[in-house]
């Protein structure tokens, strides 16, 4: 190998390494930042977001027609119980892994009244009478969207959200 070639190869190999690590790391880094911002008051508890306006800058491209509640879940000390209190319009509960994948979603068409699931990780066991969902990561984000396109509906959704649960299963 000539003298020059070894510098060119070094530059190219480094470029490939940087390229791949940035592409693979970016979703984890961005989810990490989102979890940091949402979970600033603690994990395994709902944070009811203010009505979405131009000042809402925690998550990109927020929808102003929804009332959002978010919970950073952490399964390192055991399963988590999630409950969505009833809402009379569209709502959904979606779960995101630490790489940003939406690994679970349930909405108002699929349940009669309220929704309750137990989130587990690895060998953790959920009680038999509940819907258990296995999380692909120890930490992640649970998100509830309630359709609430005007201030009156937002206030009603925020009130309904007080009945939501995101807490360790053993804390009941």
């Amino acid at each position, binding site marked *: 190998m000539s003298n020059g070639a070894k510098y060119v190869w070094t530059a190219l190999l480094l470029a490939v390494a940087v390229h791949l690590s940035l592409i693979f790391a970016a979703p984890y880094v961005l989810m990490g930042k989102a979890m940091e911002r949402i979970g600033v008051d603690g994990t395994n508890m709902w944070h009811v977001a203010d009505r979405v306006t131009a000042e809402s800058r925690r998550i*990109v491209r927020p929808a102003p027609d929804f009332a959002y509640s978010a919970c950073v879940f952490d399964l390192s000390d055991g399963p988590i119980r999630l409950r969505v209190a009833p809402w009379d319009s569209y709502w959904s509960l979606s779960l995101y892994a630490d790489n940003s994948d939406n690994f679970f979603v349930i909405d108002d068409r699929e349940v009669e009244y309220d929704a309750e699931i137990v989130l587990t990780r690895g060998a953790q066991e959920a009680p038999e009478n509940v819907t258990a969902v296995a999380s692909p990561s120890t930490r992640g984000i649970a998100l509830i969207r309630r359709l609430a396109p005007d201030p009156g509906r937002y206030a009603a959704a925020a009130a309904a959200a007080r009945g939501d649960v995101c807490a360790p299963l053993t804390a009941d």
Partner: protein
Amino acid sequence: MLKKAAAWAAAVIIGLALGVASVWAALSFGGAGAMEQYGLWRHNSLAGSTAADPYTRTVIAIKGLLALSVREARYLDLSRDEEGRPLDESCIYELSSPPLPARWWSVTLYGRDEYLVRNNDNAYSIDASRTLTSANGGWRARISPVRGETANWISSRNAGTGFSLTLRLYNPHQPFDVTAEELPTLAIVSCTGEAS
């Protein structure tokens, strides 16, 4: 010796720069994210999916973190007019839409920075529950910096140039096999001055 060190340093710097630049290029111009095109709307059917490739996942994490998977919602983005120019506050646009294939829909305007635009118009979006529709469920909406006499308005005031629209289709009809004609179309009504 010094010369050799400088050459190594240059190789490292060039390598790092190339790595960063290639990521930017792949995300900006590459097929990153397997985009499907419906008229002027761009759609990524792998958004939020556990089957997403690393490039798609990264694009979605940047552009739409916490997006729902396609079973629950479809997100379509529009950022250029029919002549390929970025959307601009100095133009007035009209969206015309047939009834949309979903249980609920909305169209929201986002600034270049991916957030809602700071203005006091309280007209960030229109949605199925508030939009005046014709008898068959079709509708028209105006995108302009001032409301004028339109019934359905999305404000572009302070949006500058390079803003974009997101069409959300919640509980989309299955299977989702729409054509561009079944989605809203964007037309330029007028532009003031020359967009720089």
